[in-house]
């Protein structure tokens, strides 16, 4: 049978795979819907507000996408973020030296924790869910220990540090730029580098990946490290933005990150996923909660809607990513 060139064609393939990008249509739909009811929504200040709020969960979602694609799980991401945020503030960035430390040390910590997770799951082959469950407690406890159960805050920081969470570059908040840049780079790596392909192969079938010469433990390890770094970056930006943190910060963010990633179409079974879609997923969640605040809808309804979104998003993900029998 001759191979039909038509079906190899890029345009044909894009059209066929368009359903993987359903979340973008979802986004357009929601934006249209909301803007019908609200004049304020599409104003640039509001859009920046939404984007800024997306940053913290969004960056974690980027890292989470990698881990989920590798068919692993990370319940500790939120705790890592919390720890890094707290440490960032506790290092008191009031002069140049400490500002540098306030950025570098948390990233190192995030990397280290990612390394430990990656080691336990990738090399020792322990169950990712259970390991990161334990890690979450470990890290949370450590954070509480450091904060001593009190809020941590800092009034005045260096301009450089302040800039991280609050500054603007070409009129766009810096944190948003970081988010978008990270997003684009992560997706490029995923689609066009060897590592990205390895990630997908490992998530799809570990044994086949090993027999193709891929060092599976290393790939898994690297995905956890990436998530650790993302969580750290997210923590630093959060710390710089709010400059005041609760003692047990970070709890719950991993759930939001996973929700965003699932909404975006990443499969919990591994092997496929898209960072841009995860970002859109995070965006949609924030958009909806933000809008509800705009309309003064009480917090409890926000929660309920979040739950509903998750269900709908998962159903859509199942439907469009359906693995045909």
């Amino acid at each position, binding site marked *: 049978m001759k191979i039909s060139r038509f079906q190899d064609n890029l345009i044909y393939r894009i059209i066929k795979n368009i359903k993987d990008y359903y979340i973008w249509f979802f986004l357009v739909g929601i934006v249209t819907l909301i803007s019908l009811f609200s004049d304020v929504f599409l104003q640039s200040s509001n859009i920046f507000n939404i984007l800024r709020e997306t940053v913290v969960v969004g960056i974690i979602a980027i890292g989470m996408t990698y881990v989920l694609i590798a068919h692993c799980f990370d319940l500790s991401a939120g705790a890592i973020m919390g720890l890094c945020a707290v440490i960032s503030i506790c290092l008191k960035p009031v002069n140049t030296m400490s500002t540098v430390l306030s950025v570098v040390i948390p990233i190192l910590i995030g990397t280290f924790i990612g390394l430990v997770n990656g080691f336990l799951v990738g090399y020792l082959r322990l169950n990712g869910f259970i390991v990161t*469950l334990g890690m979450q407690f470990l890290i949370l406890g450590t954070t509480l220990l450091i904060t001593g159960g009190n809020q941590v805050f800092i009034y005045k920081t260096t301009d450089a540090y302040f800039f991280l969470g609050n500054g603007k570059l070409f009129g766009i908040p810096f944190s948003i730029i970081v988010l978008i840049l990270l997003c684009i780079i992560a997706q490029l790596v995923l689609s066009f580098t060897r590592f990205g392909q390895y990630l997908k192969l490992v998530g799809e079938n570990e044994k086949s990946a090993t027999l193709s010469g891929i060092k599976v433990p290393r790939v898994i390890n690297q995905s956890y490290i990436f998530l650790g770094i993302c969580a750290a970056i997210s923590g630093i930006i959060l710390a710089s933005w709010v400059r005041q943190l609760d003692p047990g910060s970070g709890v719950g963010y991993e759930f939001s990150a996973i929700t965003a990633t699932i909404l975006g179409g990443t499969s919990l079974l591994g092997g496929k996923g898209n960072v841009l879609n995860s970002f859109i997923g995070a965006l949609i969640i924030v958009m909806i909660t933000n809008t509800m605040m705009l309309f003064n809808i009480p917090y409890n309804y926000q929660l309920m809607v979040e739950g509903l979104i998750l269900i709908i998003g998962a159903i859509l993900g*199942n439907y469009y990513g359906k693995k045909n029998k």
Partner: protein
Amino acid sequence: MKPKSLKNFLQYKSFILLAMLIFLASLLDKTFTTSANITNILQQIASNGIVSVGMTLVILTGGFDMSVGSTMALTGIVIMLMLKAGSNLFLAILCGVFVGVLTGLANGLLISKVKLSPFIATLATSTLSRGISFGVTNHRPVSVWNETFYQLATGSIGLIPISFLLFIVLAILTQIFISRTKLGHNIYIYGSNKEVGYAAGLNMDRTLILTYTISGFLASIGGLFLSSKLGTGSPVMAEDVALVCTTAVIIGGNRFHGNISSVKSMLRTVIGIFILGVLNNMLNLLGTMSYIQIIIRGLLVIIVIAVDSGVKEIRSTLVERIKLFFRRKDFE
């Protein structure tokens, strides 16, 4: 006779950890072994214990129930609200428990019919449930004094609190359910290979729905005792219960996959609950901060599964070596 009972005993290795902890605790602090303290421990572990019984079933099917915490909270709130409205205790409890059953049903349906993963489904119902909790209470806890209800939490028969008694009774009943009834045994079939269940004509969907419904029901009961103990129904109650109970079930020796039906899974969970309870108590007596307890809890989980997998490795190597040795001796 001897090797068999040894092999049986080894199915409950976590007991060794518990024994060590108890030993350590009694060494470190004299008050550990006082009757007052023991009653205290039993009191503390009861509500989470009840929830963990349900969680065990869910984990046996390879899933987990993130919604137990919010179910506990909502149940407490419903009971308090009804008491406040003047209803009798029995009706209030009935309504509270209904919440759990409903949530469990919803979870079961979402997972089996809508084909969502347990994580997503239970996370979603958890969020929904919390939202409702905040909504009906207007973000404020609800407290009503009711003598009988209070007795539930603090009452005891001799040294043993009623709540703990109920925990053990429920654990035993559930164990009988999964060992001796077809419906319960189907849970092991589901966890081992649900396709086989389908092929044999069993309704695996119904099994799953039943599992989550029981989990929801037991979470409700747990919430009942929790709010009775705290004297309040609050929307921010029981935030981390799901994770703590999962930890207990896992530390006790159950796993998401590969559970053997001849092992008493509930016994494992009970041991796990005791381990966490004794640990908590010991650290409290020593005056350590509660954060240390959280850290140790995390460490325990990781160590338990690491050791388990390490032991499996060593054990399989040993078994291989022994098999090879005997094969050389006699062929066929």
